């Protein structure tokens, strides 16, 4: 079991889970915001914000969670009007069409919300639709440990 804390995001990872809280280096004229990744399989160092490069190696028992912050200008927009994670996640929340990139057998869940005055997208991928109930419970267990504070100064 490990504790992650950075950029106002804290999480307790179950044993055997990989995770990271990071902020990409902005390019010229670009702003970047914190991202949390967590997975119950080995996360490659080189991966996209929404898990590209990682979910391809995920097994049927895999769970990948991305919490991607958007800029403060997004907080008041209708897309981010919902509050919090809305747990627990259930099998019915996951849909193969909810994936950023369709990989056979996998299913995804996406939710845009605001928390502590910050705008986030939660994106969860599970390795097998057939295991959706068990994997949704694993994702819920992780997300129940996540707390989001105000924007760090």
């Amino acid at each position: 079991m490990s504790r992650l804390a950075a950029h106002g995001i804290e999480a307790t990872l179950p044993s055997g889970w990989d995770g990271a809280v990071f902020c990409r280096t902005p390019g010229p004229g670009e702003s970047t915001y914190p991202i949390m990744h967590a997975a119950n399989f080995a996360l490659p160092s080189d991966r996209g914000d929404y898990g590209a490069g990682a979910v391809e190696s995920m097994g049927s028992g895999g769970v990948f969670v991305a919490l991607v912050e958007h800029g403060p200008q997004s907080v008041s927009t209708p897309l981010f009007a919902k509050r919090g994670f809305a747990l627990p996640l259930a099998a019915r929340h996951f849909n193969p069409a909810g994936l950023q990139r369709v990989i056979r057998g996998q299913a995804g869940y996406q939710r845009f919300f605001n928390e502590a005055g910050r705008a986030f997208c939660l994106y969860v991928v599970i390795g097998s639709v057939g295991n959706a109930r068990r994997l949704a419970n694993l994702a819920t267990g992780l997300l129940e440990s996540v707390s989001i504070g105000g924007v760090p100064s």
Partner: protein
Amino acid sequence: MVALLTVETVVLAMMAVLVAGLLRSHAEILRRLHDLGSGLDPDRVDLPDAVTASLLRPRPGALGTATDVSGTTPGGEAVAIGIAGSAHRTLLAFLSSGCTTCHGFWSGLAAPGTSVPLPGNPRVVVVTRDPSEESPTAIGSLAPAGAAVVMSSRAWADYGVPGSPYFVFADGPSASIVGEGTARTWDQLADLVGQASADSGGTRRGAGSSQVTSTSLSGPLREARADAELSKAGIYPGDPSLHARGIGEVFPGR
């Protein structure tokens, strides 16, 4: 004359006591330096091969519990690596920027095609001390792109690492340490990992063959290996061939 001999004898006796004291003091200094871990760099202590090769071996289960590793990246971001309970084996490489023997391992990481593949293809994670004890800039320049690097003095303490380079070979499904010790080169490390794997019943290098075969895999490890093999063949969860009702659906004509 008698008086002269007596004085000489007394002087000699005093010198003998003095030399004995100096030798004892020297031995105490060496012992304390050894306790502090000085001399783990094999280049400096010139360990015989037989001694080095016997270091990476299974140790009693009560002492061999693996724990997850968390800390920061050289870039300063929070990171955690799952060890205990993961579906794979992990080789933790405890390295530093200052030890000369470590440079061979850093460069081996930088050019994975030139280093010897490790038996069983375990995940390799480099662990250095905290940024307060180790230069993140130096580590960042040594660590190649794509390498998993965690700066965590806590991990050094958790695993009782005496110095660098040091390696801990952990089995995820059983959350146990199956081998640990030091090595000079990737070649030696590969042999030691193979030996530790075979001793612990995980993987075994066939006699006279470079092929590594797995034995006694536990459920999650077997599942992970099967998933990897199937995905290499383009078969993913939900593939119809995984749910065939008979051999005829998989091999038409049979």
